[in-house]
């Protein structure tokens, strides 16, 4: 699996002298990922973990898609008896939970894990073992959910799990606990990944990539990482209270004992609304990465785009109450959230205008990734405009919790997020695998998805206005809903075909696809400056960045960072604002401990569904594995000493951090 050998032939990553070749070999040896079964569980390189995140998330996307098709089949005609209420309620809950927690967020984080270190020109992500730990927890959480579903214990209270329906009195059995613990798994996983991404963006950027040159996709990942850190603790708190209510009889949400059912909704949506932006913002980053490449020019309005991302991240926390307009909160309070919900249209609008300007002034190269971005414009605009409608308290009270809302958020999440994601998959597939996806099949995938998607979800607007509520397992004939539901089911199957076609395309390309060169689209960002697929050390030559799109800004003439040792997993840490070299840091070696810690943590999480004692007993293996993880190893200590020796034997502190005899940064930027 080590793609290191290919790197030697990389045309963009210059390879002239024997010295350089020797250095590459040494780098490949230093950064080598372990092999074998034990090795598989010990990998810590971000490309390995990122790839696993992406593939796992895609598998969950397919599972969620199968659930969606089942729901559409059930709703194809009135009083259908294909799925009973019990199964349907489990399936719609599984669909929502899967798509939100096991597909969308991990997929966006997985892309971040894979791409962010490459885009900022680092050799690995910060805290790679923690990221690996996050992956295993995510995987185990997903397996746990589906295992329980197969045992007919899948959650059935919706992905929002409102109390008291999910409380101890109305949800006997373990279904609601399964949901609550799934949340625990995914929130811990997202939190650790968010921490890794933030530190990577802040501290591991290539010299020269000052804060005003960070690629927009990286900005997007940075913004959502902060959003995760502020939003996830809220749902962690809420789901813990729910488990406590269910497991040991606390009464956080029991009105009979002074608890409050609305408290859950506030806590959940304070997380739940930002969650939507956590899914959407990376998609805007993907668009900002794809558009310049296929318009052959710099993105228009970089600063405005960055400010829009950050503004969306802030305002996204101020509109959760628009999910609760029907709960009879004071009208003045609702007006505030109406204003906030409408206001968020402005940063989003600013992004759309900047992208239009980029297109307007560019030279168009029509390839599949661009098609998905154009599809995004059409679909997302519809979703965004219905979002403005939903911001209105009065109109919201008519369409809230109806199929109109189902249509709206699928236009936002599929149109706004999955379309760019597929564009991104076509765009970065050659980088990740070294093979091109078929352009011809790609156009079919796009066309079918576009038609299928609109056929499925557009009629739902009208269904909602004609009174069809959400989350119903069936409906009566004679209310004028039959035709539109059937149309949606037909559209859904077309969409399913398009996804299947994509899978065929991917497998064909992997097996016998056209080999990709390092920069097949002629893009400008740093991930294209290395081989496809990237070697385990990412970059041999650490050229300084001189603009927004480094490869378009005379990359080959830039000075090169030297003095970062290639016999150790050494990386250069730079300053937050200017990305000036600060000091050097030793990345950890591969280790099996993150995997073992994840196994121990899983035991604790799953056990605590059944008995509170699992927290006490389960803490022991978690502690042991944590101690194992952080136990200082002799080799690492020696490496550290070696690195520090080099560090101090050089020049004094005033002359900046240097390693070995050579300066880190030759020449000037």
């Amino acid at each position: 699996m080590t793609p290191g050998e290919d790197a030697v032939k990389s045309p963009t990553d210059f390879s002239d002298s024997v010295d350089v070749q020797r250095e590459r070999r040494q780098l490949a040896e230093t950064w080598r990922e372990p092999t074998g079964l034990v090795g598989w569980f010990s990998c810590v390189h971000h490309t390995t973990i990122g790839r696993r995140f992406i593939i796992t998330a895609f598998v969950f996307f397919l599972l969620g898609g199968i659930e969606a098709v089942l729901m559409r089949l059930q709703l194809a005609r009135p009083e259908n008896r294909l799925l009973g209420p019990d199964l349907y309620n489990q399936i719609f809950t599984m669909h929502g939970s899967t798509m939100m927690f096991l597909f969308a967020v991990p997929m966006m984080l997985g892309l971040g894990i894979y791409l962010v270190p490459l885009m900022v020109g680092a050799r690995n992500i910060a805290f790679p073992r923690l990221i690996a730990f996050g992956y295993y927890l995510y995987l185990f959480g997903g397996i746990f959910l589906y295992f329980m579903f197969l045992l007919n214990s899948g959650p059935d209270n919706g992905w929002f799990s409102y109390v008291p329906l999910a409380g101890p009195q109305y949800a006997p059995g373990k279904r609601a606990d399964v949901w609550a613990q799934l949340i625990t798994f995914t929130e811990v996983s997202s939190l650790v990944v968010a921490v890794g991404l933030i530190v990577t963006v802040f501290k591991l950027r290539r010299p020269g990539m000052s804060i005003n040159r960070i690629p927009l996709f990286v900005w997007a990942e940075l913004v959502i990482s902060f959003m995760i850190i502020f939003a996830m603790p809220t749902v962690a708190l809420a789901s813990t209270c729910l488990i406590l209510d269910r497991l040991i009889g606390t009464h956080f949400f029991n009105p009979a004992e002074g608890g409050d059912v609305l408290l859950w909704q506030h806590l959940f949506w304070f997380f739940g609304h930002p969650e939507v932006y956590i899914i959407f913002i990376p998609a805007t980053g993907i668009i900002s990465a794809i558009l310049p490449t296929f318009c052959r020019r710099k993105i228009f309005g970089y600063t405005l785009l960055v400010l829009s991302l950050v503004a969306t991240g802030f305002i996204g926390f101020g509109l959760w109450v628009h999910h609760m307009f029907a709960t009879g909160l004071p009208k003045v309070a609702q007006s505030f959230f109406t204003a906030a919900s409408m206001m968020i249209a402005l940063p989003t609008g600013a992004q759309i205008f900047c992208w239009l300007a980029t297109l307007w002034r560019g030279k168009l190269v029509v390839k599949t990734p661009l098609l998905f971005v154009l599809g995004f414009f059409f679909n997302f605009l519809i979703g965004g405009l219905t979002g403005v409608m939903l911001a209105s308290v009065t109109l919201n009270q008519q369409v809230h919790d109806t199929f109109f809302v189902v249509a709206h958020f699928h236009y936002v999440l599929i149109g706004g997020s999955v379309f760019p994601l597929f564009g991104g998959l076509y765009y970065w597939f050659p980088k990740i695998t070294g093979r091109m996806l078929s352009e011809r099949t790609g156009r079919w995938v796009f066309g079918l998805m576009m038609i299928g998607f609109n056929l499925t979800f557009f009629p739902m607007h009208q269904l909602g206005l004609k009174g069809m509520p959400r989350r119903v397992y069936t409906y009566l004939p004679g209310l004028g809903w039959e035709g539109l539901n059937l149309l949606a089911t037909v559209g859904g199957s077309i969409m399913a075909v398009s996804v299947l076609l994509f899978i065929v395309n991917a497998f064909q390309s992997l097996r016998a696809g056209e080999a990709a060169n390092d920069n097949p689209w002629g893009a400008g960002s740093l991930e294209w400056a290395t081989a496809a697929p990237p070697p385990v050390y990412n970059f041999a030559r650490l050229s300084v960045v001189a603009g927004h799109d480094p490869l378009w800004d005379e990359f080959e003439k830039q000075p090169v960072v030297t003095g970062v040792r290639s016999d150790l997993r050494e990386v250069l840490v730079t300053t937050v604002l200017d990305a000036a070299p600060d000091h050097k840091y030793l990345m950890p070696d591969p280790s099996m401990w993150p995997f073992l810690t994840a196994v121990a943590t899983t035991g604790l999480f799953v056990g605590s569904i059944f008995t509170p004692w699992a927290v006490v007993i389960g803490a022991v293996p978690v502690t042991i594995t944590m101690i194992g993880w952080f136990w200082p190893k002799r080799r690492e200590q020696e490496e550290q000493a070696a690195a520090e020796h080099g560090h101090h034997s050089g020049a004094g502190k005033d002359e900046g951090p240097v390693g070995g005899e050579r300066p880190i940064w030759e020449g000037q930027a």
Partner: protein
Amino acid sequence: MKLWGKQKLWRNALPVICAAMLTLYSSCAGRQSALDPAGPQSLRLSRMWWLMFWVCTVVFILVMAALCEALRRARSRARPEVEPIAERKITKVIAGALGISAVILFILMIADFMTGRAVYSQPQNALQIKVYGRQWWWEFQYGDPQPSRRVTTANEIHIPVGRPVMLQMTARDVIHSLWVPNLHGKTDLMPGYQTTMWLQADRPGTYRGQCAEYCGHQHAHMAFLVVAESNEQFNAWFENQCRAAHSPIDASQQRGQQLFMTRGCVMCHQIRGTNAGGRLAPDLTHLASRQTIAAGTLQNNHDNLGNWIADSQHVKPGNRMPPSGLNGEDLQAIVSYLENLK
């Protein structure tokens, strides 16, 4: 390069838009439709909808037109343009577009506030009805100063045309949401909270409402009817509801009543004027006067009633009514007794 991308996009998109527009206009009418207003509030809300709809449609068309023009220019040109003077001009255009967006959003917000003022202002002389949401049916209690005239009924209310009705709502178990699209938007019913909403019908008719907050197993079958009728009709109906239940008039009905009182039925159901006083399930005092049974799921007729009593779990799986185990003559007897409860 052929003019491929845009054409393809529009070839896909145009029929979809056309079909969409057509379906949106075709038949907004219906007895559970937000776009077929029958009261002052839903009329206001539907006006708000059409305002939103047209504003958003215009914005959508403008942005799509800009996209098409951008694609046309970007395709025909040989080289991208980046010279700074023109870029600055575009910056100004974007600033203008953002300004216009802000103004549009502001206008929509003000329109929303004004609609809200009209829709939520407290009415005078309203008929008071208490509503209790239960898994999976609706309990209604008409307020009256005289306790004997506080009528309790289920899954169907009658209201006089032109008179506002104030609903005071709470839930007995989990959260529900009351929604009659032809009359008004929805308001949640939550345990531990009392919410209110008022509505009014301006033309006679039967409007269907349905629970809009997911409330478990049979959320799909939790509907009710609002019958709006003239004042006289309403008063007649109300007077009838105030009366105790009719007594059995033949042997079969007598047998039915006896069965009702001796089997499990009395544990949950109430029939005023008899010993049946259960409060867990719908009040059956005037069951036969209602149009539907099983919370708006079935027409209230002989066969449906029989099937329901024999095995309600088959009709509405998971509902709270246990199978009665009745069949043959006993079933006929109990059905004929209930059919007499007009």
